[in-house]
């Protein structure tokens, strides 16, 4: 066991932190965490600005092979995520950089790689994910949107939903039923498409706090070049599984929680109630310490996941455990913090809001981590079925 970083890694980590700290100065006051990027125009602009700054340094291609202008290794990607998380810096497209790029590197043809990787690395093209449908959520393989091949095109018809950033993205990747006659898991294809293609209609869905980070996407005879596929035709399920296995240490989210807790500690030191700082209240001390312990446990497990992935080893179980843990920890953080803030815990960004309303925002946004990326119930199934070999009754 050795958790030490090499001198080179320490230097790069410092550089990541320095740049993110500098970028924080340009953060719009309305920015309250990753989701606001998809909700507010000034936050989206900030996201694009950060993407350019990162692209300039080659940081959107960390861990890619040199032939695709990659830089650094997987560990750099982890350290970069840590810095971005701590300063809550956007600029890394979750869908393009974190999900699609590693998938393309492993499963796409040379032609597709050459076409789609460079714009991702340059921070020019932003992506969205077109997976869920109204009747295919956790059971994604039950999807029904079709892409029927005609000549050198696919013609897509149907509807996708819960598509984060679809209203902002340039391109989308999704899975569509290409062989309606074939059996489940061998009937779909992983397709890349331009979101400006005629026939696509995008409708934002109001989220429970009134913002709209997600969309419904309707397809009405949408023509997509047949070459724009990843993996084998009709074998998109394998690509979906490949993609789902990438990244997912959650270190960026965990670091953002660690920073938020630091801010809450400051608030408790500076704010008096009953004539003494909140920090002197033994109950508050105990609750915040409990959360700090859990955050450290989450961080330690995230490094375990990263360590496995750095060595190209499977991390299915640990990644699932980490996801369950940090996402539910986010819920607890939101509940405890807004409780400590008392009546102020419900105030949105305004002159009355403590800490700019960050915790009020998290009270809504934690569902993003528990429900998406495979619900926590699905993650528990993964651990039980694939990890521990418990019987699966269909």
């Amino acid at each position, binding site marked *: *066991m*050795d*958790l*030490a*970083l090499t001198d080179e890694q320490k230097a790069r980590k410092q550089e990541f932190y320095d740049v993110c700290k500098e970028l924080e100065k340009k953060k719009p006051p309305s920015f309250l965490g990753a989701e606001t990027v998809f909700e507010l125009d000034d936050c989206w602009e900030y996201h694009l600005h950060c993407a350019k700054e990162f692209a300039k340094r080659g940081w959107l291609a960390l861990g890619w092979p040199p032939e695709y202008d990659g830089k650094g290794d997987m*560990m750099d990607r982890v350290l970069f995520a840590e810095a971005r998380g701590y300063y809550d810096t956007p600029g890394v497209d979750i869908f393009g950089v974190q999900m699609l790029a590693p998938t393309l590197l492993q499963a796409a043809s040379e032609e597709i790689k050459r076409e789609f990787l460079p714009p991702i690395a340059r921070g020019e093209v932003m992506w969205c994910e077109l997976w869920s449908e109204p009747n295919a959520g956790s059971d994604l393989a039950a999807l029904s949107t079709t892409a029927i091949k005609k000549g050198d095109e696919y013609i897509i018809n149907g509807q996708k939903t819960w598509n984060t950033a679809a209203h902002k993205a340039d391109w989308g990747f999704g899975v569509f039923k290409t062989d309606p006659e074939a059996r489940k898991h061998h009937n779909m294809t992983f397709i890349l498409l331009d979101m400006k293609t005629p026939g696509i209609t995008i409708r934002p869905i109001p989220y429970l706090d009134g913002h709209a980070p997600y969309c419904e996407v309707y397809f009405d005879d949408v023509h997509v070049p047949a070459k724009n596929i990843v993996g084998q035709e009709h074998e998109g399920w394998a690509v979906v599984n490949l993609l789902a296995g990438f990244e997912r240490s959650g270190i960026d989210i965990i670091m953002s929680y660690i920073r938020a*807790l*630091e801010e809450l*500690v*400051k608030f*408790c*030191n500076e704010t008096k109630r009953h004539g003494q*700082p909140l*920090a*002197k209240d033994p109950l*508050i*001390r*105990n609750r*915040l*310490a*409990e959360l*700090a*312990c*859990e955050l*450290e*446990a*989450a961080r*330690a*497990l995230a*490094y*375990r996941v990263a*360590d496995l992935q*750095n060595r190209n080893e499977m991390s299915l*179980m*640990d990644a*699932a*455990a*980490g996801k*369950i*843990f940090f996402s539910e920890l986010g819920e607890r953080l939101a509940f405890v913090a807004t409780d400590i803030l008392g009546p102020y815990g419900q105030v949105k960004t305004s002159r009355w809001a403590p800490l700019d309303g960050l915790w009020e925002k998290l009270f809504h946004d934690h569902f993003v981590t528990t429900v998406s990326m495979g619900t926590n*119930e699905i*993650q*528990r*199934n993964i*651990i*039980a*079925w694939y*990890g*521990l*070999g*418990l*019987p*699966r*009754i269909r």
Partner: protein
Amino acid sequence: MDLRFTETQEILKKMARDFLTTECPKTLVRKLEQSEEGYSPEVWKKMAELGWMGLIIPEEYGGMGYTFQDLVVLLEEIGRNILPGPLIATITSTFSILEAGTEEQKKELLPKIAQGELILTTALLEGDGVFDASGIAVKATPKGDDFVINGTKLFVEMAHVANHIICVTRTKDGTTSEKGTTLFIVDSKTPGISCEVMPTTAADKLCEVRFKDVSVPKKNILGKIDEGWPIVEMMLRKGAIAKCAESLGAIETCVEMTVAYSKERVQYDRPIGAFQAVQHKIADMWTAMETSRYLIYEAAWMESEGLPCAKEASMAKAYVNEVYMDTAKWAVRLHGAIATSADHDIPFYYRRSKAADTAFGGTDFHREIVAQKMGLA
């Protein structure tokens, strides 16, 4: 960064697992719990031959010279089999001698500890049952070349079989409760010492030790007079991590036994492990185990590297305390009525989880350390 065990650690782990599987069956654990001594001198001797008591003692004092991290690997295995006995008491007392002992004390005691010839324990808690210095009231008063100790210590692990007791005493009323505490290495055969085993949840032989006009030579002071508390803090910090490692092994066993049982126990024509109500609970147990694991390994690594880790050690202890009790509780629940039987193995772990919880500081004690270290005023 590489979170894998080293080759040495893998060998140590395998050796320990093989040894304990053969030498420490549950029949023996059951017998030892009911016995007066609470440990097996024969197994103790064999463990000494394997070098376990001397694992972290430097080679120059007859030990193996392994790291703290290596010790954690061993203790995890010990915890899997919940071997009863004075190993942790001896090892944590050894920490204090290694940290604060004079050359003479080290030369005298360490080789014998490594050989398995001496059992040590540390007498810290008193009537208040608190882990901070405010609880120290047992007095040591100078008299000629000796100090005379008077008072009662409680919850002293395996004191009834210990050869030496490291006794934390008050030698002066200082400006703070930490000041004026002094540690003594006391020969347990010294006249005036009496010992009684307390009945406890885990039957782990915690003792009341009474000191009545017990004379201890000045040369037996461990560390500096009146400045004993930093040694106690160090012992609690390392002890907390060590106990966590032992708990982790026990948590592993609880999870593994529950997984195995849920695959074989059939109800409603299917193994109970096919029900998602059971699967998800087991997944939660597994998740809690893994979060504990890397938190413990992180603290152990920092301790091994000599990095300041009071916060991380306390984080680990506060967290693992609850995980162990909760995992053991769910192991009983998912086994059902069978695991409430005294003949079943799971209750060993459930009962031990309470002992592990209080040893080297309970959850709230460690959370308060975390609160201070995280900057709460």
